[in-house]
């Protein structure tokens, strides 16, 4: 179950995690982009976390909308409108709910995934965060419960690491084309971490990947 409280805790945890992973995400982006994905994400989710701290929200919709607006004004890169879109889709999906079950979480994630596809005009296999959100969303839809949530983390992790072998055709890394093969997509890694933290906040006991070693 996702409550106002667990969602707030998730945002805080994700922001803290991004701060830890800032350097590796920047370094990955430096190899195939402009070297700012960690900085962008850490700054954006720090801003979002601070924005919601001490605030009370009527429902999950209002909370997600506040996160989305904070991201829009603070991320700066492509990941800004992308993650903001995901949170806006959550906001629409969870409007007027103070808590949602895993079925509704699955719906929210599916809607977010659809939003990301539309925003980025991307398809799976283009070495973008969609490569992670899509299998995670599918796992959760297939099994909308605690096990599905854990399966989503596993699928997300696998996809994030597999992004290494894909040539980019969207985003800045597309300038490199085949030369982007050999480096994990930074947005895919930050997305896998997203699912790790979402699962940890909702079901707990998630084993987290050591991205510094495995993604590099």
């Amino acid at each position, binding site marked *: 179950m996702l409550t106002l409280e667990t969602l707030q805790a998730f945002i805080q945890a994700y922001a803290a995690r991004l701060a830890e992973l800032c350097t590796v995400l920047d370094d990955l982006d430096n190899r195939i982009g402009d070297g700012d994905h960690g900085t962008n994400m850490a700054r954006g989710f720090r801003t979002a976390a601070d924005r919601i701290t001490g605030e009370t929200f009527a429902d999950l919709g209002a909370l997600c909308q506040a996160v989305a607006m904070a991201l829009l004004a603070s991320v*700066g890169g492509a990941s800004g409108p992308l993650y903001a*879109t995901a949170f806006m889709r959550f906001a629409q999906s969870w409007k007027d709910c103070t808590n949602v079950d895993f079925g509704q979480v699955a719906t929210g994630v599916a809607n977010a995934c659809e939003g990301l596809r539309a925003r980025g005009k991307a398809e799976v296999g283009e070495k973008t965060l969609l490569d992670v959100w899509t299998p995670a969303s599918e796992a959760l839809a297939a099994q909308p419960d605690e096990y599905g949530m854990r399966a989503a983390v596993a699928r997300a992790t696998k996809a994030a690491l597999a992004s290494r072998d894909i040539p980019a055709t969207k985003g800045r890394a597309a300038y490199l084309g085949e030369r982007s093969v050999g480096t994990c997509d930074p947005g895919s890694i930050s997305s896998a971490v997203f699912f790790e933290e979402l699962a940890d906040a909702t079901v707990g006991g998630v084993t987290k990947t050591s991205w510094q070693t495995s993604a590099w």
Partner: protein
Amino acid sequence: MANVSLVIVSHSKQLGEGLVKLLRQVAPGVDIHEAAGLGDELGTDATAIMAALQQCPNTHDILVFFDLGSAAMNAEMALELVPPSVAERTRIVDAPLVEGAVAAAVAARSQLPLDDVMQQAETARIMQKRLG
């Protein structure tokens, strides 16, 4: 009389400001705004783009120029968040930032209709800048 405002979206505040000065020189009197940079960092800010769109007179059509794909994504985001009365007057132009905006500014100054202003901007893609 066609009235067209221009909005310049760039990752760099300096680049955006410099371009706006260049545009004002070729097109004095044309309404031009910029939403560039993320504070002192390189980046774009959808809320700044929203603000720029809303600063344009409400009788004007608005053309948005941008530097890189992610700036366009943020401009699209901004378009979804401003009131429909603003969004329906706005188009994001996929043209070279500097060359497209210069061509559009000159056309807007001549009070050409919106479609012609856009077409001038898009033609900038194929125009040889260097003669001969």
